[in-house]
Every structure is written in structure tokens, then in C-alpha cells.
């Protein structure tokens, strides 16, 4: 049956990202002084988890043809909030987690409302709302600190059954419980439709507004999960921790094969995009590259990924096809 082939062809970007990741990860393990072990796997999984969540979140607005430049700020706000509320008695911790997730969802929803009903371009709307969220985060946590329940933190950053990194399970759970149902819903299909051709979607009777609202809201929720997970790793909160996450999430989305023009892609590719970025850092570390060169390599890799995607254009022989 050609069904599988068709599926692979249509998810070419994600397949490529997975391939690259596997190769990189093998190199990483071979360079790692301790070799493959449960500890190394768990560390690797934890290192990329927060970025993976944020990248998943970023994927949704990008699929609608938009963008969320406030996603790092939402992550920081949720991280700061978590350091206030996710501690104390187990009930309080549970309530705190729910509160943090709802905060992320609300931030995303506000972005969605401003973009959809305010009809302000996503770039500028989320750039501005990002300032507001950063301000709120600073209000909650002017200097890094606070406390996050260590029992929960350790449970989330260690292994389940002693072998499987819990952070990996968490990612799989989020994919299966949130992404897969969403993608197979009318709402989720509307996200793709809005990004592919908003006019055609509208004319076909797709509720573009609702789908976009959902996309931005879910982006906020995913960012909140990311912020929470960062808190589990550091046991504390930091209002300015989110700055690099916005850029890196976009990079992960692009590397993961989602089109910046919308309509094509998905969160699976973005997760691998995030892990590719983190694995490269690990490879460089163990290969003996100076730590100060780290940001430089990140820049080069991002530009390289974009340039690679752009090479497609060089093959197009009709110059009109590359415009608009």
C-alpha cells in the first residue's frame, strides 16, 4: 500500500529531523565518557524537555501562519509562579500545578484574543504581550529564588521503573493526551486550514477564529508545562529565564519541518528539533569545544538550518514561484 509512502512524503520534514537526531544522538553517546547508561539517557532527556515543550507550543501558532514571540515570557512567568505556589502540602502542590497550567493557558488565550478579535498581527501583538508577561513575572519574582516541591521535582526528573526517564514519559503523555486528540479534531484541522489558506478555510465554513484561539491557548499551556519542568530541574524560579527560549523554540520548529508560512508540519518534528539543538550542545561539549563558543555555534546552526531549507528555492526555476 502506498499509504505509508504518502505519509512519509507528506511528513518529510519530521522524518528528516528524526533521522538527524538519531545520528547526532549516536555521536553524542559515543563521545560521552560514560557511554550509554540510564543516567546519561535521563540527563539528555531532561536537558531537552523544557525546550521540547516550548517548541511544541510554538508549533501551533506557526501552523496557523502566525507566531508567538511571548512564549519565552509565558514560560518565565509560569516558572516564577511555580516557585511561589508549587510547594508545601501535597494538596497545595497539586493545586499549584493546576494554577500554573491555567496561568499559561490564560496567557495564551489572551494572545489569541488580541490576535483574532483585536486583529493585530501576531508578531507585534505577542512582542508586546511578552513585555507584559515578563513584567508580571518580575512582579512575582524580582530576583531568582523561591521554592518548588522537591518530591515532585525529583519524581519528574528521575526515572520511572528505574529505566525510563520520566521527562520522556511526560512528553509522550502530552503528545498522546493533548496533541493527537487535538490534531484529529475539527478544531485542530482548522489550525492547519487557517495556515494553509485562510480565505479558502473561511469560504469553506471553517471556524478559523476558534481554531486560532485554541492554537494560541495551547501554546500558552505548553509553555507553562515547560516553565514548570524548568522549575523541577532548578527547584526555584527566575523571571528572566525565558529569554533564549523564544528564539530556540522557533529554531526547533523550523528544524522540525514545520513551515513558517503555516499549514504544514506538527509537534513531533518540533520535539526532535528541540532535542537536535540540545544534542548538538552536548556533542560540542564532549568534543571539547570551548563553552564560550556555544552561542556562536547555536547561531551558525540556526542559520545553517534556514539556509538548508532555503536551498529548495535555488532549485526552483520559475522565479515567480518563490515570491509571495
Amino acid at each position, binding site marked *: 500500500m502506498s499509504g505509508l509512502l504518502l505519509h512519509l512524503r507528506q511528513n518529510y520534514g519530521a522524518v528528516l529531523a528524526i533521522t538527524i537526531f538519531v545520528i547526532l544522538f549516536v555521536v553524542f553517546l559515543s563521545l560521552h565518557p560514560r557511554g550509554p547508561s540510564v543516567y546519561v539517557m535521563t540527563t539528555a532527556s531532561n536537558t531537552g524537555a523544557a525546550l521540547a515543550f516550548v517548541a511544541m507550543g510554538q508549533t501551533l501558532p506557526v501552523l496557523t501562519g502566525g*507566531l508567538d514571540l511571548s512564549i519565552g515570557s509565558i514560560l518565565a512567568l509560569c516558572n516564577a509562579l511555580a516557585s511561589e505556589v508549587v510547594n508545601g502540602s501535597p494538596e497545595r502542590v497539586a493545586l499549584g500545578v493546576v494554577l500554573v497550567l491555567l496561568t499559561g493557558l490564560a496567557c495564551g488565550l489572551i494572545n489569541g484574543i*488580541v490576535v483574532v478579535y*483585536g*486583529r*493585530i*498581527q501576531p*508578531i*507585534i*501583538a505577542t*512582542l*508586546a*504581550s*511578552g*513585555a*507584559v*508577561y*515578563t*513584567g*508580571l*513575572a*518580575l*512582579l512575582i519574582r*524580582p530576583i531568582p529564588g523561591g521554592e518548588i516541591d522537591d518530591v515532585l521535582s525529583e519524581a519528574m526528573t528521575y526515572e520511572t521503573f528505574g529505566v525510563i526517564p520520566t521527562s520522556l514519559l511526560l512528553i509522550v503523555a502530552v503528545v498522546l493526551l493533548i496533541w493527537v486528540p487535538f490534531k484529529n479534531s475539527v478544531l485542530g484541522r482548522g489550525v492547519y486550514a487557517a495556515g494553509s489558506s*485562510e*480565505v479558502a478555510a*473561511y*469560504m469553506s465554513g471553517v471556524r*478559523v477564529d476558534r481554531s486560532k484561539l485554541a492554537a494560541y491557548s495551547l501554546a500558552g499551556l505548553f509553555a507553562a508545562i515547560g516553565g514548570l519542568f524548568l522549575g523541577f530541574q532548578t527547584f526555584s524560579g527566575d523571571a528572566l529565564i525565558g529569554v533564549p527560549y523564544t*528564539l530556540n523554540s*522557533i*529554531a526547533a520548529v*523550523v528544524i522540525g519541518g514545520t513551515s*513558517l*508560512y503555516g499549514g504544514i508540519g506538527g509537534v513531533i518534528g518540533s520535539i526532535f528539533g528541540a532535542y537536535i539543538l540540545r544534542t548538538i550542545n552536548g556533542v560540542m561539549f564532549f568534543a571539547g569545544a*570551548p563553552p*564560550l*563558543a*556555544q*552561542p*556562536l*555555534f*547555536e*547561531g*551558525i546552526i*540556526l*542559520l545553517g538550518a*534556514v*539556509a538548508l*531549507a*532555503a*536551498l529548495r*528555492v*535555488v532549485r526552483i526555476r520559475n*522565479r*515567480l514561484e*518563490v*515570491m*509571495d
Partner: protein
Amino acid sequence: MVRHVLSPQGPAAAVLKRVDRPVLVAFCFILALIFAGSAYFPQVLTATYLLQQLQIASFLGVLATGAMLVILLGHIDLSIPWTFTGAAIVATALAGIEGTGPLALAAVPAGLAFGALVGLANGLGVAYLRAPSMIWTLGMNALILGISVFYTGGFAPTGAPTEFMRAASVGRAVLDIPNAIYVWVILGVTAVFILKLTPLGRYIYAIGNRETATYLSGVRTRLVLVFCFVWAGTCSAVGGMLLAGYANQAYQAMGDPYLLPTIAAVVLGGTHILGGRGTYSGTVMGVVLLTLLSSMLSVMQMQEAGRQIIYGGVIIVMLLVYGRGGKIQG
């Protein structure tokens, strides 16, 4: 059921019609800010205060002058922060090696060349590789950041601005007006000249409206794209060197706080973020408005948190007032 929309009549209305609505709204906001501010702090209405604000505004103004041309094309330059910082580091480093002499003389040209070079790389990527400008310039920003961290070892860069940079930023050569304002005026007049009077300006608006149609009209669209990015990079470099002269040093991430205000100033001034529409007078209004706003907030001794919230909030509210895009219609 047919309703006629009543349009305002008379000469006053004729004048109003000629002025862009965003320019007018921004202007009213500025007046409101000044009067509200003066109610609490009488010094707001003094020439000294206003001139000082204009001097601070000129850094933002120079950046917005660059960003505006790129935004008019329907693109965006997110490499502003580190083009700004990088040019400042390059210029102060050259000047720092020896206080005067040939290397110090080369400081400003080298800073400008740095900005132009970054702009060129941005422009080539966007025009020839057809990379989305948002991600391409973001990557360029990360690259310069990486180079700068690597080169300075992550510490504050050494060096100092030259006398000329200091003078250009804080000196008052003519009429007791800060020279930085003149720098802004020169760049602004150049931008207006390009946009209003030359074919290049026409092409910039045309590309922002429909690149394919412009290309098929026999316009060298790729050159126009490259020009605008080089222009933006150069403006960012000028801004960086002005701030280095003002602060008497260059420092890591000195450009980071300028990205949002620069883009916001252009957009609040009525330039459409997707390109094709916008006036320079609007950009000036946007710059002055944001500068006054942040000055008021610091006069009120607002904490960083509150400033960010109010800053972002005001931008969203103002865009809600007039910056709304059209509703999709079949």
C-alpha cells in the same frame, strides 16, 4: 436600509483628511502624556526636559528609521539588538587600542561598515536565498551574539568611545541642541527623501504591496531588498555608536532593550507590519511617544516590572485603537 456614512465637512476636515489617522492619534497621545505628566511634575514642560527627551529619543529614532524601510517591504529585521551592540563594541574596541591616531579615526567607519555588512548578509539571505526574514535575521542576531561572547570572553568589552562619538552623542554644536538629534534628523531627512521623491522609494512601497507585480514590472526587486537591509544595519550601527558615546562605553546586550520599542515605534506610527503602507511622520510620532512614555514611567520611579507591563499594555491598547487589520472577506 442603505445608510450614508456622514463625512466631516469644511476646511478643518480637509486638513484632517490629509493627515494619517495613526499620526493624529499618536500625536494626541503625546500631548496627553505631556499634559498629564506636567500636572504631577512641572519640570516636564521645560525646554531642558523636552530637549533631553528628544536626545534620548534620537537613539530610538535612528533605529526606527532603519527598521521602517525593512518593515515597509513586508519584512522585519530582528538582528537590530546585536547589530547595535556589535557596532558599538567594534568602534569602542578600535578606539580603545590607542586613544587617538589612525585606529581611532577608523572607529566610526569600522562601526558603520560592521552594520552595513550585517545588513548585507541579512539582505542576501532574504533576497537570494528567500529565507523568511524573521528567522534569518533572528539567526544573524544569534550569530553576532555568539561572535561577541566568544571574542570578549563573556566579559564587558574593553575600550572607550572616541571623542568624535562622544561629541556626536552628547555634544551641542549648534543652537545648544544635542548633536544626536541632528544625527537623527539627517537620517530621517534622507529616509523621507528616498521614500517620497525617488524611484527607490516607490519600489519599496510597491514590493511591500506585491512583490511579484513589482518584479514583473522590471524592477530589480532583489537589489531593493538588499539596499533596505543594508540601510537598516547601518542605522542600527549608528544607534549603537551613539549610545556608546552617550554611555561612554559599550556593553554586552546593550541593544536588547531596543528591539521591542523600535518595531513598536514604527508600527504605532501607522506603518503596516505586513508592508506597503506607512509614513515617516508616523514613525517620528511613535518614537517620541514611546520615549516620553518610558521617561514618565522612570520619573514616577516605577519598577522594571511595572514598566514592562505598562509598556506592553500601552502598545496593545494603541494598536487596538487604530492598528487593526482588515477582516477577511471573500
